[in-house]
């Protein structure tokens, strides 16, 4: 029970910390093309293939007018092109990570890595979830 609680709340803390980070939105200036057909709620599962960053965590994100925003207030940003190509950037308490990949229809996937290269892995997304 203790481990479970610690895990749950620690993960929540990560999400909360993410909201406090400044976000370099201009990093995606080139990717602001509208991708409205992907608009809506998505659920993204992050898996770690290299490094000690935890694995198997699920995040809610929303795409609005081709822009990626975090659900529930945590900070994730990026853009999806009409082709489905997507780039996402997360800044978390001094550490940052970027992801890229492709959406097609109601699913998608790609890779991610921390800016320092400590961790890397892949992600998978599916529409909806709630």
């Amino acid at each position, binding site marked *: *029970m*203790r*481990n*479970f*609680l*610690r*895990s*749950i*709340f*620690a*993960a*929540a*803390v*990560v*999400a*909360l910390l993410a909201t406090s980070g400044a976000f370099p939105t201009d990093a995606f200036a080139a990717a602001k093309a509208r991708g409205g057909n992907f608009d809506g709620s998505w*659920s993204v*599962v992050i898996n770690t293939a290299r490094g*000690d960053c*935890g*694995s*198997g*965590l*699920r*995040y*809610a*994100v929303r795409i609005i007018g081709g822009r990626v925003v*975090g*659900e*529930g*207030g*945590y900070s*994730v940003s990026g853009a999806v092109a009409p082709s489905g190509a997507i780039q996402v950037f997360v800044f978390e308490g001094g550490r940052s990570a970027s992801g890229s990949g492709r959406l097609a229809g109601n699913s998608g996937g790609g890779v991610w890595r921390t800016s320092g290269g400590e961790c890397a892995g892949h992600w998978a997304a599916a529409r909806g*979830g*709630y």
Partner: protein
Amino acid sequence: MPDARFWSDSEPDFTASLPSQPGPWLILSSGGADGAFGAGLLNGLTASGRRPDYAVVTGVSTGALMAPFAFAGKQYDEALRKCYTEITAADVFELGGSTAESFVNSWPLREFIDKQITPELMAAIAAAHRSGRRLFVVTSDLDSQRSVVWNMGAIAAHGGDDAAKLFRKVLLASASIPGGFPPVLIDVEAGGKRFQEMHVDGGLGGQLFVAPASLMASTSDYRLPATQIFIIVNTGLQRDFKVVDRFAPTILTQSIGMAVPVDTSLMIDRAYLVAKRGDVEFNVASIPANFDFPSKGPFDPNYMKALFQVGFDQGNGSTAFAAKPPPPPSGPSPPNHIQKTGAN
């Protein structure tokens, strides 16, 4: 739905719901991902050939999630193993989907439960109920601040979509730590009126359930109508030292983490006294104090597999259960150099 539930403090409702004949009772405690221990232990007991059909099975929180499989019998061992060794946190909760009710969203766990509680499993539970065995799951009704015991076999035996939905909702509620997970609203009807009750983790009323508190009291002369009692403790009772950041969620987590082992330990001790009072054989299995496999995050599959294996080996070994309660919670001394972090 008649006989679907009763207040956990109701002596007459509890005694009326019990099997007509004494038999072995299985008590499954709370514990989150550490339920992998109990799942492994049950699988190990099957492998050893020493696992009975329990006359009564009770479950709280993660104990509630494994209780239907334990109750339905050995043929569900593999399903139980998969539940505790082949999941990740993504199968349990979603970050960022929080509402005013909770830090995270539990829709993945809801969907996971929906998949696991199959019509075949419900039918097996209903058949066992009709044979006189009993499956109880505990939730906490926040509105009334009372624990509710759900007669899951009676619900399964009722049949139909409404019963299946209620069965799954009760399991979700029993494992929904308030604040962490959203509460579960359950439709009820009383006095000709329909309304919703707010239910959360059954552990609020105690980390395991044997009988109403008044019957468990030291002043009671109640004799448990069981031949044996087997308690599986799905949570470590050892203290972990951790420098607590001055941050509300961390403080809350460490606070609950301090209270749970104390509550668990006291309840095990109480169950021991009640068993002795009624000449009932007492058995308890808990996570070995030397288990220290590192967990790299919530519901780390490698951690859960390691704990499952520990449980399996214990269940399949000669000393699956102890005859006396484990020692009260204790912990390591703090290191020499500690430094608090956070704002002043």
